[in-house]
């Protein structure tokens, strides 16, 4: 079990916990260009995320995230580094994160912080946790871009 426990220490390295604790970007925006609520129905992670855009570029980001450390760390990282990104940047960063989780490549030089999620690669059931805030952000930007911001692409319908 020792190998497993050192793997765990890597999975829950200080960087992850620091980001989760810091909860960068926590809160709500007064004037958002788009708002998205997403959850992982299978595990209960949930994020409400708002962005405000100018000329297609994120100028402010805020979120309220309930979930595991990995999900919260990912949301916090976006809260810190999200401003300044445009749609292309979000897509590229998400792709880079997916590549890291699938153990296909190291983090890009401009986003070294993504490397803290590399140990989650060995735990497929946790990939969704890490990716949830990124998926929410991608949806929010898409929504802000869309002519009609009505459809939030919610995961399921009320009944």
């Amino acid at each position, binding site marked *: 079990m020792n190998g497993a426990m050192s793997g765990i220490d890597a999975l829950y390295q200080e960087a992850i916990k620091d980001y989760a604790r810091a909860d960068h970007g926590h809160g709500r925006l007064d004037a958002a260009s788009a708002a998205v609520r997403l*959850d992982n*129905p*299978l*595990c209960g992670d949930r994020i409400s995320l708002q962005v405000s855009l100018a000329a297609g570029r994120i100028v402010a980001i805020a979120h309220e995230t309930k979930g595991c450390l990995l999900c919260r760390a990912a949301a916090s990282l976006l809260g810190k580094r999200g401003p300044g990104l445009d749609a292309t940047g979000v897509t590229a960063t998400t792709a880079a994160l997916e590549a890291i989780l699938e153990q296909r490549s190291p983090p890009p030089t401009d986003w070294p912080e993504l490397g803290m999620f590399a140990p989650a690669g060995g*735990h*497929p*059931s*946790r990939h969704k946790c890490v990716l949830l805030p990124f998926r929410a952000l991608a949806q929010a930007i898409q929504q802000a871009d869309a002519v009609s911001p009505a459809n939030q692409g919610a*995961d*399921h*319908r*009320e*009944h």
Partner: protein
Amino acid sequence: MSEASALRAKFPLLVANPGLHYLDSAATAQLHRSALDAVVAHETGARANVLRGSYRLAEAADRAYEAARQSAARFLNAASADEIVFTGGTTAALNLVAQSFGSLIEPGDRVVISQAEHHSNFVPWQMLRERCGVELALIPVLPDGTLDLACLAQVIDGRTRLVAVTQCSNVTGARTDVAAIAAAARKVGAKVLLDGAQAVQHGPQDVQAMGVDFYAFSGHKCFGPGGIGVLWARAELLAAMPPFHGGGGMIGAVTAEGYTWAEPPRRFEAGTPPIAQAVGLGAALDWMMDLDWVPIHAREGAMCEALIDGLRRIPEVRLLGPEPSSARAPIVSFDIAGLHPHDICQVLDAQGLALRGGHHCAQPLLAALGVEACTRASLALYNDEADVAALLAGIVRAIGVLR
């Protein structure tokens, strides 16, 4: 070693019963060793519930279950594994469609089935008719049991929402002209469901090439475990369909006031699914996808033809079903005037021949063919000429015993 005996060697029950002429694969095909091994390996190495567990055992179970979904998607050439819903079997899959897709059909609109359907593709639609006034129309059969395609344009009318037919009859083996059905349905904007229960033991399928919208089959009919089946449907249909059963795993969230739906395929998989069985089915499908089906089909066809030829030489026998033998899957049913199929099967059994007699859950078809019951021989890849010869000799002997 012949190809057939090499194949037989992979089926533990056939190995354990070397004297057995198993000619009832249309009811249940025997279990391939890889499927049995996969079930045992799963139960002893990765057994856990697949819903929401994050410990390694649960992750392994989840991975194995989803890999089986991938195998089923490849076996059917589905566009995505998300189009694969695991069910308890063909019957459960057909009831799912009749209930869920059926609830989207307006009273007065039409569902078309054929007179050749297995009860499992007959009764769910009769139940839908009772429940909500959907009209049920039948494509009639010709005297040889094939669908009367001349009627298609008339039966599949403008109010038709779904045409649900079998790919092969489980009684006559008659193959449905799927292209003709799909074309007639497309013309009026109706969807097509194919009951593949009798097709899957004869090789992988291509639902996209066939141009159908729903496809159902059972694991036990294609060398996999029982208690597992597959419903394939186009993603946009599944996305529009309401849940079938309620329970764990198919919801987004539940409160006292209501519940939300999970995305397909999970929306249709309430409760703990048959996990080990799905894994076993995946192994059986993987094995089938690795086979070269050209020589197998040739052999199945040759055996079927030899059987039909031999039966034709027995004067008491009345053959059911289409000619030539290439018009059917290797299933041959027959009637012997004055003798009851149960008596025939009993005497055949005493000679090591396992066949089924009765109405084969297809009473409307048998009524059209003018018999109440019949005896059926169905051939699979592990059968050989010796099985056919034994059957022909056995039938002659049965007539002698019973007359």
